């Protein structure tokens, strides 16, 4: 089998398999926002969005946009039956108060302790935080979706962050275009690899040491 990396869509598809029926989910911008496209129609998932929307539906069709109904990326969206609106302090009471089952977010770096960097490039003067710091700490489970390495091939799963921290010890699971890795008290555990890859392929592009799960398997996409 050829060693190909997963596409962004395939990473999103794989994450969608791990959202259980009834889950309350916050999806960040980038790969995460694609996840909802792959959720089974049998599962009733409630999407929360930081600007005060619980029960966010799909992107609004042309002609049906309301400039006052947007997602976190400021695109016009819809609301599903059962959805509701609240103000920003109440929305972040949900996000900070551990009421969100799963948040899926992009990442620039994740450390072996589960520390996350994703709001500012190393050495940059400016960055935007938005809801990232609150959501990273406040969600019951935090999934990170990202490419396994940076564009120039640099490590993103590292021993210690050298990018500005978003939150410490917050990541539960990392989904990359090569692997699924759990953050545990023992360290990073390699759970699944992309079709055609093996543990060694993944370790080579991972600065932090990976513990290979006894149940290591290929992702099914």
């Amino acid at each position, binding site marked *: 089998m050829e060693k190909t990396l997963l596409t962004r869509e395939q990473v999103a598809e794989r994450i969608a398999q791990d959202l259980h029926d009834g889950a309350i989910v916050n999806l960040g911008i980038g790969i995460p926002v694609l996840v909802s496209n792959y959720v089974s129609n049998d599962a*009733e998932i409630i999407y*929360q969005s930081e600007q005060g929307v619980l029960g966010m539906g799909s992107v609004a069709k042309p002609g049906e946009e309301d400039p006052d109904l947007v997602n976190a990326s400021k695109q016009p969206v819809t609301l599903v039956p*059962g*959805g*509701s609106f609240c103000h920003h302090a109440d929305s972040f009471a*949900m996000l*900070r*108060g551990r009421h969100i089952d799963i948040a899926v977010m992009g990442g620039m770096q994740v450390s072996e302790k589960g520390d996350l960097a994703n709001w500012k490039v190393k050495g940059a003067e400016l960055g935007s935080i938005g809801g990232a710091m609150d959501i990273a700490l*406040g969600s019951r489970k935090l999934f990170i979706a990202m490419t396994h390495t940076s564009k120039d091939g640099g490590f993103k799963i590292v021993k210690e962050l050298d990018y500005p921290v978003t939150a410490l010890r917050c990541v539960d699971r990392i989904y990359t275009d090569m692997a699924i890795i759990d953050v545990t008290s023992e360290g990073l555990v390699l759970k699944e690899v992309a079709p055609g890859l093996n543990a060694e392929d993944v370790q080579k592009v991972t600065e932090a040491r990976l513990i290979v799960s006894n149940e290591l398997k290929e992702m099914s996409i």
Partner: protein
Amino acid sequence: MINKIVNSVDDAVKDITDGSTILFGGFGGAGVANELISALSRQGAKNITAVSNNCGYYEKGLAKLIMDDRISKIICSFPLMKESYIFKEKYKEGKIELELVPQGTLAERIRAGGAGIEGFYTPTGVGTEIAAGKEEREFDGTPCVLEKAIKADVALIKAKKADRWGNLIYNKSGRNFNPIMATAAKITIVEVDEIVELGELDPETIVTPGIFVHRIVKKGGL
């Protein structure tokens, strides 16, 4: 599919364990989950820490739980109403511990517990016996005391209408502590007058979104 509707109040409270911290919604008689409290009375859990604005009336509801020595501690703002004579007796017998909290601080501590805020500084209580043992600090000339979040195992609240996701609306000042208590418990159980179809509640008017609700029972049974 999400369906938080439970068949009976007894089912809804059956797994509450001894030693639980329980939030009881209501202000006086307004917005009290009477049937859930009766079910808790039948259920038997003891050594409960109760959080409630008042201490129950006559020998019913929360007052009955106190009478039966089920409540070992109560956190409240207004224990002394003439209808709350059971509390007073039990307090004098040393059967119940009291943590007296100003009403606004009580509300804010519960809200903080639900919002992931661990503590806050309020001017309320400075210079009073309520501030004893609490850290004081000045902010731009305003002296404040540090108060800590209240988080609970269970909330027993009352609402007017719910849908199967647990979205709630309330009736008038029956709202009171109920929406904030809903946010601050691991398990929030709601007694409602009416259950409606999903989508029937106007999304602009939902006071408690379903994210904070775990079990719904209809008053008087389904």
